[in-house]
């Protein structure tokens, strides 16, 4: 993974010092709460339902065992002993008192971590494919490019107060595991016909009240120009994005409203920077800089590529076989595998990990993965460097440490935001819904029979749980102070399995909380009745349409039927 330079290290220390200065002024009454707010947000500090929430950046999901242990210590010393991994590959704490926040920033800086730009109306922490650099289907390792982008966007002086938040996702693989179409800017690394490397650039995607898939603004942008092109996009957005209504302030609204005019403005701005600006070509990335950063992504020492294929395993225990099937993934290095540690198990919210579990995962990483891990978009952890010959031992150890639920990609491997239990924005709780669905589908045979399916749960329209892109989406809504849930079907992150990125469609009026597990079951049963041989859930939904699902879902209405009758 990326190795911090001394400069990087000093930079995050100074950021912590700057934050302490701001916090001190706030506590001394010299900086009002209102004016402190945007400053703390740009360091990841929200004030939530019970206490401040801290969102810590895990750039493109890469984290090492020492960092994870440090997060465990923070969970114990400052929080209530657990944290929550998010769809944007970050980690959130929920119970840290604000007056201790700068102590936490210093503790983070000591392990090369921070909360810079994990919130606020700025360019957010950049996300990627959790299998970047190790995936067999990768065209190009995106991490060095993202690191260059991360550095460029860090404390960018012109783009710290945009109309609204700004999210960038990058993939270098054929399969889009980063949901790039759903981002303000999505970048896909590829090679053109001449074999040159560049980016396909998407712009204007986003979730929220108005789900939109990004449009392609460049089919092929030479990689050297990516900082300049993004500067052009963000400058046009900063100047012309709406600021009168926060619900219409994302770049997707500007792109939709202006269409070709927006594209022309970006292209003109891009040309102007390169041709007219003083120093306008300085951010064209030289090969030497790329090489320097790429060299900072050191391969772990002691990797030994296998020279011959491992002998096929026979007589595998069924439970181990299931884990191999769901939680173990191909690797670009012969003899190696990537292994998902599932954070989706009964009794804990999706993506949550206790301090002990963080230590446990760190220990597994040290023992089996050269001390490295990844945080995934689906809110799990991945061990990226596991020797094939260690798999069985790892399985036993992961089982012991609560990480071996063999459900990756299945219904209970759901995405969920923290919801109304913790988040001040939420209209409804997510965690009890996730727990009820997990309980309902606890039979592994049934889960395997249902097969690959993305279930996404958001507690409100801000869509942190990405309900729009779930094959099944659950959205919490508030009606007269009660929690209701809108169900959508047919959404997609934009993966091969699910087809292109697309928002799901609502299947009818909202359901009461206690109906939701029945509705999910009814929808799943309809799929099992209607599916063709080997047909995935999403394909059946697309083939037969929503109607059969609406009928079966309506059959689950009890409270809502009573409410409608009354």
């Amino acid at each position, binding site marked *: 993974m990326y190795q911090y*330079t*001394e*400069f990087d290290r*000093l*930079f995050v220390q*100074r*950021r*912590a*010092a*700057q*934050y*302490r*200065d*701001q916090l*001190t*002024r706030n506590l*001394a009454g*010299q*900086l009002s709460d209102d*004016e402190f707010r*945007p*400053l703390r947000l740009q360091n990841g500090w929200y004030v939530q339902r019970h206490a401040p929430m801290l969102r810590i950046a895990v750039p493109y999901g890469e984290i090492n065992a020492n960092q994870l242990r440090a997060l465990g210590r923070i969970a114990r010393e400052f929080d209530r002993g657990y944290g929550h991994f998010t769809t944007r590959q970050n980690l959130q704490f929920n119970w840290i008192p604000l007056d201790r926040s*700068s102590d936490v920033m210093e503790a983070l800086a000591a392990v090369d971590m921070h909360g810079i730009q994990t919130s606020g*109306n700025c360019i957010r922490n950049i996300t990627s494919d959790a299998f970047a650099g190790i995936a067999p289907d990768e065209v190009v390792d995106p991490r060095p490019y993202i690191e*260059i982008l991360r*550095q*460029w*966007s*860090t*404390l*960018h*002086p*012109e*783009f*710290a*107060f*945009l109309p609204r938040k700004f999210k960038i996702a990058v993939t270098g693989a054929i399969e889009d595991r980063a949901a790039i179409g759903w981002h303000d800017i999505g970048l896909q690394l590829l090679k053109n016909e001449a074999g040159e490397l560049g980016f396909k650039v998407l712009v204007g995607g986003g979730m929220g009240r108005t789900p939109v898939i990004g449009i392609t603004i460049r089919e092929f942008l030479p990689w050297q120009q990516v*900082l300049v092109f993004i500067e052009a996009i963000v*400058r046009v957005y*900063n*100047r012309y994005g709406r*600021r009168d209504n926060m619900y219409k302030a994302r770049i997707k609204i500007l792109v939709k409203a202006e269409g070709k005019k927006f594209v022309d403005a970006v292209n003109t701005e891009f040309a*102007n920077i390169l041709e*007219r*600006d*003083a*120093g*306008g070509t*300085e*951010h064209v*990335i*030289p090969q030497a*800089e790329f090489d*320097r950063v790429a060299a900072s992504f050191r391969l772990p020492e002691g990797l030994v590529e296998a020279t011959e294929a491992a002998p096929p395993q026979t007589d595998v225990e069924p439970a181990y076989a299931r884990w191999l099937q769901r939680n173990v993934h191909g690797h670009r290095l012969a003899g190696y595998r990537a292994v998902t540690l599932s954070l989706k198990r009964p009794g804990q919210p999706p993506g949550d990990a206790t301090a002990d579990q963080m230590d446990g995962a760190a220990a597994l990483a040290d023992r089996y993965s050269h001390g490295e891990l990844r945080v995934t978009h689906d809110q799990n952890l991945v061990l990226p460097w596991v020797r094939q010959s260690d798999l069985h031992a790892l399985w036993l150890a992961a089982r012991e440490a609560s990480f071996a639920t063999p459900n990756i990609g299945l219904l209970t491997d759901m995405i969920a935001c923290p919801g109304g239990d913790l988040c001040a924005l939420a209209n409804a709780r997510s965690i009890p819904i996730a727990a009820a669905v997990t309980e309902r589908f606890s039979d592994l045979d049934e889960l395997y029979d249902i097969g690959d399916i993305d279930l996404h749960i958001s507690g409100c329209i801000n869509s942190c749980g990405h309900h729009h892109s779930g094959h099944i989406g659950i959205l919490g809504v508030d009606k007269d102070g009660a929690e209701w849930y809108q169900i959508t079907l047919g959404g997609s992150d934009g993966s091969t399995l699910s087809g292109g990125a697309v928002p799901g469609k609502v299947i009818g009026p909202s359901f009461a909380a206690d109906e939701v597990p029945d509705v999910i079951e009814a929808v799943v049963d309809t799929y099992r009745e209607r599916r063709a041989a080997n047909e995935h859930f999403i394909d059946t939904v697309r083939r037969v349409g929503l109607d059969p699902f609406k009928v079966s879902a309506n059959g689950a209405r009890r409270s809502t039927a009573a409410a409608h009758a009354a």
Partner: protein
Amino acid sequence: MRFIEPRRNPWRSLSGEDGPVVGIQPVANLLLDFGQWHAFRAQWPEGMRVGVALGNDVDVEELAPDLPRLTLVALNFPKWVDGRAYSQAHLLRARYRFEGEIRATGEVLVDMLPLLQRTGFDAVVLRGDQSQDAARRALGFFPGHYQGDVRDAQPLFAKPDGTADALVRKAAPQFVSAGEGI
């Protein structure tokens, strides 16, 4: 960065009290709004000091041909979290090579100082309740930056080998003690 004390500010604007301005007597150090400048630019005597205050929704392109005649461009922050004026300042410096003063007005808070300085502002009128000490301190936290800016267009990566290390060595002994002076 210059801190402008409102009492010692020689620039005078022509807004408000007497209703719409119908005629302007050219005198030095008038700060006109964009509409006033537009109306009187043809008559404005060459060489007489004049400034223009731009709203943050004005395209600075429109002012480009007149920039060599201007001593001052004042850019406004109606709310401090409205970041449009940063782009205006950047363009004035990087694209239109404006060499006069760029002054931040409106809701200007101490924590904006690093951004203002790096996008091309060289003078600020702080909001009345803001501390100049805190503002100066806000300018001193970072040893350097990753991306280029209008003061130094070269990003860190374009600088000669060893620059980042030199910045670290130079910064280390004088680590800013946070909260100092409060």
